[in-house]
């Protein structure tokens, strides 16, 4: 059982890398190379940087002349709209990719059903055990299930793949994007 375990674990890492590459590949074909996306992303990046620079100059929370405040609010509103348009453009390809990966994951889940693929050097706290011990027999919670290892792997490599291929969003844009979208979510 144990000798197979390491082979399973390495296979799952390989699967995770392949699916992450596939996901980015699909995203590239369906989304990143489209004119709409490139245009909107460029606009969001530029507007975010402009807004960030303006905020630094004017100062957050300090009393500002009302003219400047209005201008800043208008620019924030503009950025919010651009971000919303960007989200709409991403929506279509996200659905396709989501569907593909649900199917893939379902297939892998059934292949690895009930198999202990690794031993955890820690006991996950009870909320996580639902994932880490999913579909496994017994009560040894250092047994690791496919899905837990897969999720960890994906978390570890997805951002790196995006950075490697330059697909990511700049820090300024993602920070401002989340700030503006946050409360209404």
């Amino acid at each position, binding site marked *: 059982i*144990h*000798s197979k*375990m*390491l082979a399973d*674990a*390495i296979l799952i*890492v390989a699967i995770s890398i392949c699916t992450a590459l596939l996901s980015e590949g699909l995203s590239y074909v369906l989304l990143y190379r489209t004119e709409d996306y490139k245009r909107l992303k460029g606009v969001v990046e530029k507007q975010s940087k402009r807004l960030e620079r303006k905020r630094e100059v004017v100062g957050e929370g300090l009393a500002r002349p009302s003219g400047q405040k209005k201008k800043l609010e208008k620019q924030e509103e503009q950025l919010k709209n651009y971000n919303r348009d960007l989200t709409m453009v991403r929506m279509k390809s996200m659905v396709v990719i989501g569907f593909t990966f649900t199917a893939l994951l379902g297939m892998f889940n059934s292949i690895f059903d009930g198999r202990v693929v*690794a*031993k*955890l*050097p*820690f*006991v996950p706290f009870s909320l996580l055990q639902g994932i880490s011990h999913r579909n496994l027999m017994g009560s040894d919670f250092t047994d*690791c299930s496919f899905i837990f*290892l897969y999720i*960890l*792997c994906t*978390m*570890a*490599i*997805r*951002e*790196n793949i995006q*950075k490697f291929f330059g697909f990511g969003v*700049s*820090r300024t844009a993602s920070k401002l994007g989340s700030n503006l979208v946050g409360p209404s979510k």
Partner: protein
Amino acid sequence: TSMETSIWSRAFKRQQKWEDKDDLLDVIYWMRLVVSIVVGILCGIVPLTGILGIVFYLGISCGLIYAYCSIFQQIDEDEFGGMWEILKEGFMTSFAMFLINWILIYTACHFS
């Protein structure tokens, strides 16, 4: 000029000027990733298990980044929005990378 030198040639020299904040954050990101891999492998070999391993990782990774920023580079924290913003950089990805290495090496060394 700082535009022409790559960020990596600056990363290993003391007290550099970081005009573009993202440059330093990139250095921190990749540095943290490498540290996470190394600490994960170490913890897997020894083995260091349980909460001790996690605390060890957090201590080393945050400690190293803090030391790099405030002692080696001597940056002005306010320019970056405080040390907390810097410590947050790439945290989830690096932590996941640490866990993966820890789990894999632990399984390989002690269960096969």
